[in-house]
């Protein structure tokens, strides 16, 4: 933030601390309910402008949860506010926020086109397909591709689609697309090409009243370039402000992925109508030889037969493309509590070498790590979690006895249990349910996030490399800041030992840390407990194959998030 902004913020906070109504745009009563403050920025702390944010109910750090609200970030370096204010309505629990990155083109605007009825529109397309055959015009893909390849920006396509209202069946581009694809199918017999059917599908789904040409616009943009997803969402949401229409970009697009499949029957029916009309027009052509007419009619008949199946395939391909675009171009979802503000720093892929190294690297020690802030990935605890924790502890001695009674239990595990029962019961308390056991295959790899070079002496290991973010790792593996700073991980080859206990990880209460009572780490990952080889460590140093930096401890990091208590003077209210 620049100096002016800092001075402004200080003045706001001073006014606030003096108990008077906050000066200028700080709004005290607007902060009575449930809200959060959001900021999204580049690694140099400049604000990302025009990105779309989505706030959802907790979904394990992944987009795809139940959406509470969404919108466009409007903070720029010239803004007097640092954050935008997001009202959560009645929802008073933890939320997660994620972003779609940042288009920069200006918002175009075009006047709505006049509307004509659907039957006439289909008939015009059929007429054009038939007449094109009759004239013997040299159609080619370049001249027929319609607005799948025209020079309209994403902003123009989306804004026009919304502003023109739904359904829009009269636009020249829509008509041209259907004509183009109809000719490719009937005249060039290119009905094995998925792209042609996607084109047909996109044109005809524009006829669905609840989806309209916005659906078509989204499909054609995403089909051409999935990386446009962020831009699509921003323009949908921006166009809403112009029209007052109650459509939300992320929710519309997410639902569209399902709608395209649901509308297969409708689209197939419209395609059938289009083919009927085309067949009628072709039959009436006087200047074509009977052979050409019969060939065209036979092709149309074949298209009638295969149409539903091809349209279904196109719908599923579109669905996959949309879901992939949503998944690939959204950030991770970051947890934040009502009343907090959060800054998410934009993703920059790590170019530093994460590994593998043959030995421990000093920077893996993550010097300067501060354990005091709330654990990333922590959630608010409730009584049900505490009850579950207590019952796990009460069940652990019973699991101990049951495991010992199991005649198939490998001898090395039985020996470890009997050698140190009290410690083993404490181990069992870290499992969310009674663990199972298994023998290792030769050459099997185990993973462990470690603090230091002696981290290989620990008993708890994982079957997979750690996740990409610290929040995911701490939540999944229930690891407190004070236990492990998570700077690196190691990969060991087993056996030995020949066998281990395996099970899900129990939740971890944070009640023992002042200021963190009321939070917990969810657990749920898989842990592998190795039996002791007292007095030596179970895994010997020569079993360590590789040392790696964790993704979040890379020299150039991926997405970072920081949270603090929100103040009323920092937002755009």
């Amino acid at each position, binding site marked *: 933030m620049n100096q002016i902004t800092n001075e402004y913020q200080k003045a706001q906070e001073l006014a606030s601390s003096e108990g008077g109504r906050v000066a200028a745009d700080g709004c005290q009563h607007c902060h009575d309910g449930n809200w959060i403050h959001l900021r999204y920025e580049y690694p140099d702390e400049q604000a990302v402008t025009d990105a779309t944010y989505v706030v959802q109910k907790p979904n394990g750090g992944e987009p795809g949860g139940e959406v509470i609200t969404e919108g466009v970030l409007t903070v720029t370096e010239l803004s007097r506010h640092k954050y935008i204010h997001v009202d959560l309505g009645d929802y008073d629990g933890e939320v997660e926020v994620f972003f779609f990155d940042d288009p920069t083109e200006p918002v175009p605007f075009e006047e709505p086109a006049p509307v004509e009825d659907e039957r006439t529109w289909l008939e015009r397309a059929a007429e054009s397909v038939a007449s094109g055959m009759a004239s013997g015009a040299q159609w080619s893909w370049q001249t027929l591709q319609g607005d799948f390849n025209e020079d309209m920006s994403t902003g123009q396509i989306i804004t026009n689609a919304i502003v023109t209202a739904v359904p829009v069946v009269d636009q020249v581009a829509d008509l041209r697309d259907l004509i183009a694809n109809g000719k490719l199918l009937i005249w060039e017999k290119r009905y094995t090409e998925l792209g042609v059917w996607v084109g047909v599908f996109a044109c005809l789904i524009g006829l669905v009243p609840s989806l309209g040409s916005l659906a078509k616009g989204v499909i054609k943009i995403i089909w051409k370039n999935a990386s446009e997803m962020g831009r699509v969402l921003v323009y949908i949401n921006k166009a809403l402000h112009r029209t007052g229409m109650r459509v939300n970009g992320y929710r519309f697009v997410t639902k569209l992925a399902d709608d395209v499949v649901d509308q297969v029957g409708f689209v197939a029916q419209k395609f059938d109508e289009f083919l009927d009309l085309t067949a009628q027009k072709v039959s009436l052509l006087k200047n074509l030889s009977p052979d050409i007419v019969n060939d065209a009619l036979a092709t149309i008949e074949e298209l009638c037969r295969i149409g539903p199946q091809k349209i279904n395939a196109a719908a599923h391909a579109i669905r996959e493309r949309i879901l992939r675009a949503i998944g690939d171009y959204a950030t991770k979802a970051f947890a934040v509590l009502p009343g907090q503000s959060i800054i998410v720093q934009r993703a920059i892929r790590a170019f530093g070498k994460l590994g593998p190294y043959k030995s421990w690297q000093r920077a893996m020690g993550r010097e300067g790590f501060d*354990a005091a802030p709330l654990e990333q990935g922590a959630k608010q605890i409730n*009584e049900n979690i*505490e*009850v579950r*924790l*207590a*019952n796990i*502890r*009460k069940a652990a*001695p019973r699991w101990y006895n049951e495991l010992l009674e199991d005649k198939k239990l490998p001898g090395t595990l039985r020996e470890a249990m009997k050698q*140190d029962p*009290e*410690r083993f*019961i*404490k181990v069992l*308390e*870290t499992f969310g349910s009674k663990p199972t056991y298994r023998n290792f295959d030769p050459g099997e790899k185990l993973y462990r996030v470690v*603090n*230091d070079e*002696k*981290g290989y*002496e*620990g*008993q708890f290991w994982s079957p997979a490399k750690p996740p990409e973010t610290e929040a995911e790792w701490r939540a999944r593996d229930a690891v*407190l800041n*004070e*236990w*492990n700073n998570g700077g690196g991980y190691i990969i060991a080859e087993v056996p030995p030992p020949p066998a281990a206990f395996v099970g899900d990880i129990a939740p971890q*209460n944070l*009640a*023992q*840390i*002042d200021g963190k*009572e009321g939070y917990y780490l969810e657990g749920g990952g898989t842990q592998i407990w190795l039996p*002791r*080889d*007292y*007095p*030596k*460590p*179970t895994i010997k140093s020569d079993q360590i194959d590789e040392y790696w930096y964790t993704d979040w401890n890379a020299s150039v990091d991926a997405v970072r998030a920081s949270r603090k208590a929100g103040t009323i003077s920092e937002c755009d209210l």
Partner: protein
Amino acid sequence: MTSETQQIIALFLHADQMIVDYVAKLDQVQNHINARIENGVPLPNGIKIALHHDKENDISWLRKAVDDLDGDKQVIKGHLHQLRKTLGKADSDRSILQAELLVLDWSTNADRSMETVINQNYQNSDLLPSPPHYWAPIAQEWRQLFKYETNSQDDIAQRTSVLKYLQNVRNPWAGYRAT
């Protein structure tokens, strides 16, 4: 007040004192390590077996161990502080459940926190017992006393009795209410 309630209060008091004593043991361990670093005094066997393997002559590692033990003492004292605060402010049977968990979980927290200093394999040491073994008497008594399924009628009655004692008879942790 039932004798069971008395036993639970006694267990909590015992746990409180044992945590205090463990912090004193860690002070002693730091003194021994400092003597090794500054004056070359060999580490006692009870400390050697507790530390990570083959580190008793690695002076830079021992310096870091002393620093890490400072942090570990803060974690352990913090755990005690939370237990005392929870009991001092107990106002519902859920508070007692939270105290139960804090008591039983102390050894795991201590063990995991000290992972950079102590090895995870040793069993007994006269100078620095491993947290699970040190805590065994507490854990075993805990399991005998808190034998009911959590949130069952018996369990709630048990916790309610403890709560009433703390609220109406005597609360040894009342001084920690405001902390």
